[in-house]
């Protein structure tokens, strides 16, 4: 059994603030009309990406590789934020 290594409370608090700020920007910049026009799984994947910034999770939902999903992200005008 591998022992879990956990981040400190201070780091977690900072990360949560960063995540909230990035989520706000993705929501603001997204082309919601384009997103609404997509087939259900792609639409869901784009929304998951907006909410989490997690391209792997979003690409899995869309049934695509991250490179293929990234092309759709660009069309939906959702910024990648680091």
């Amino acid at each position, binding site marked *: 059994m591998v022992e*879990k290594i956990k*981040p400190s409370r201070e780091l977690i608090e900072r990360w949560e603030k960063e995540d909230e700020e990035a989520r706000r920007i993705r929501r603001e910049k997204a082309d919601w009309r384009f997103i609404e026009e997509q087939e259900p799984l792609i639409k869901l994947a784009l929304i998951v990406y907006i909410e989490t910034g997690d391209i792997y999770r979003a690409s899995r939902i869309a049934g695509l590789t*991250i*490179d293929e999903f990234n092309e759709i992200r660009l069309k939906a005008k959702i*910024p990648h934020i680091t």
Partner: protein
Amino acid sequence: MIGVLDACFIIDWCKYRHRELLEQLFATLFIHEETLAQLKSETTITYVSRLLSEGKLRLYPWSQIEEDEYLRLRGEIIHDPRIPSLERPDILCLIMAKNLNAILLSENTGIHRVTEFHPRYRGLIVWTALETIENMIYKNILNVSSEDEFLKLVKEYEEDTGHIFKRSRLEKSLRRIKSWLKR
């Protein structure tokens, strides 16, 4: 200088108008074949194929010892919900960069967070495109004579790739550039 490429970095970087300058910054770049398998778009494939054919980019020879470290590291971090999901190729990149003493080129927030708290990976250097552009300036690969010129380069990257850098990170980067310009 040796670099390790992860998929998130390369799929954005290959769209950047100055993408070819990466070859001047790094003597050798490494990629894992599982990262390579994530690349599908024509732009990315064209760029990566050229790097591979010129010998600038090499496939990393993965070993059983590294596979054991992958299982250990995954077990230590993978269930923490505050770390954006780290897929196998991301974790492989971390291990490769550590073993090669290389700079990991990654836009994956999860990767950056692991290097902030994990004792074995804390010292690992991870650059996003922002630090990559910054270091191209320090090495005179990209020339700027003012902060505005640096910001213009960053803006070009953001326009080309649909990628935004957090204000706090950009401010830190700008401070370092400012100090470098005064040298």
